[in-house]
Structures are given as C-alpha cells and as structure tokens.
C-alpha cells in the first residue's frame, strides 16, 4: 500500500505526480484521479488558500487513513496546495489505485468531498483587484451527506 499526503506551498505538476504514483502501483488495475484547478474566466484573477499548520496536514493524514480503512486500495495520493495561485494552476490532486474500479472511484470521490468540506483551508479570491474571503458552499455540505 503506497500512501502519500502532501501539503504543498509551491506549485506542483499533477501529470508528473500521477506518473510517479501509477509507476508505484503496478499491481493495481485502475487509478482514479481528481485534479482541481483554479478556473479561468469568471473574473477571478487569483485564489489564495491559507492553512493552519498545526491542524491542516494532520487532518489530511487522518482523512487519508479513513479512506484507506474504508476501501481496499493499492495506493492513495493526496496533494493540496496552500498559498496564492493563478488561473489554470492546480489546487488539489487525489488519486486512488485499486484492483477494482469501483473502489478507486468511491475512494477518490469520498476523499474529495471530505477535503472540500472538512479540511482546514480558508479561501479568498481576487476579483477586480479586490480580495474577498469565500464562505462554505451549501453544495459541499450536501456532498458530504452522501457518505453518512
């Protein structure tokens, strides 16, 4: 079981991260990944994620442990950016490798729903030169309820 959880304050290359992850799980038949990136368009000029070091990475690691416990995986990868990002830049990459496709899909989906709604990140967006903090979205709470 290969497991990597990373909180990155610098830009990362999701394609290269996935290549390395896939190379490390040759026994897995399938790998499901989710890549979240800063959307271009819609007027957002930049996005900033702040984290609180004593909580953020430990909680990501605890989430990864729950995912590994709930599904039978060959590997799990979680990389989350913190800091200021430009449109098009990657924010988060989750990948789950499993013998069975369904496990990989469910694990990646669960990990993303929980990262989005429960992780210790605070987000602000720069629109028309002004930074504003983003409140939690009701959709994220609904997504979470699917797993109860």
């Amino acid at each position, binding site marked *: 079981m290969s497991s990597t959880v990373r909180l990155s304050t610098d830009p990362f290359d999701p394609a290269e991260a996935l290549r390395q992850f896939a190379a490390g799980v040759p026994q897995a038949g399938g790998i499901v990944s989710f890549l*979240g990136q800063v959307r271009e368009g819609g007027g957002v000029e930049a996005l900033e*994620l*702040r984290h*609180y*070091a*004593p*909580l953020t990475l430990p909680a990501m690691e605890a989430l990864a442990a729950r995912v590994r416990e709930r599904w039978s995986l060959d590997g799990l990868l979680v990389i*989350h*950016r913190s800091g200021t990002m430009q449109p098009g830049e990657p*924010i*988060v990459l989750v990948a789950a490798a499993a013998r069975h496709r369904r496990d990989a899909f469910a694990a990646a989906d669960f990990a993303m729903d929980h*990262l*989005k*709604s*429960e*992780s*210790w*990140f*605070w*987000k*602000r967006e720069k629109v028309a030169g002004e930074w504003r*903090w*983003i*409140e*939690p*979205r009701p959709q*994220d709470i609904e997504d979470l309820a699917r797993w109860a």
Partner: protein
Amino acid sequence: MALELVFLGRLEDLAGSSGRAVPFAPSLAAVIAALEPDLSAAVKEPRIRYAVNGTLVQGDVELREGDEVAFLPPVSGG
C-alpha cells in the same frame, strides 16, 4: 510576549493581521474579552472554533504563558 493569537480567514482582515502577541490572560474567555469590540464579537460567533497550541478546544479553557490561541472560522475548502 505572553500569548500568541492567530486569526484565520476573514478574521484576519478584521484583526488587521494574521497574528499578534498579547499580554497574558488566564483563560480563553479573558483573551476574547480583551480584544477590540468588533473582533471580540466576531470570534464569539457560534461557528467560530478555537485551538490552543494546535489542538481544538470546546468552551472556555485555562491558558498558560506562551500558549498559541487560534481563531478558526468555517473552512471554505480547496
């Protein structure tokens, strides 16, 4: 320096910075009472959570010299 306060998310804007040192106060409630009125009101909202030295706490707690107190608004995801 006696206590270190950390403000996350929109509380940072209200506090004017992401952190500050304040004189020692014996409890979380005493720290909050000593903040400027608008910030004090904001950190008392029900959805704000608190951490002392990186550990979440519930309700009022006693503090010791050098403790770090973090004020955590609802997270807004990645």
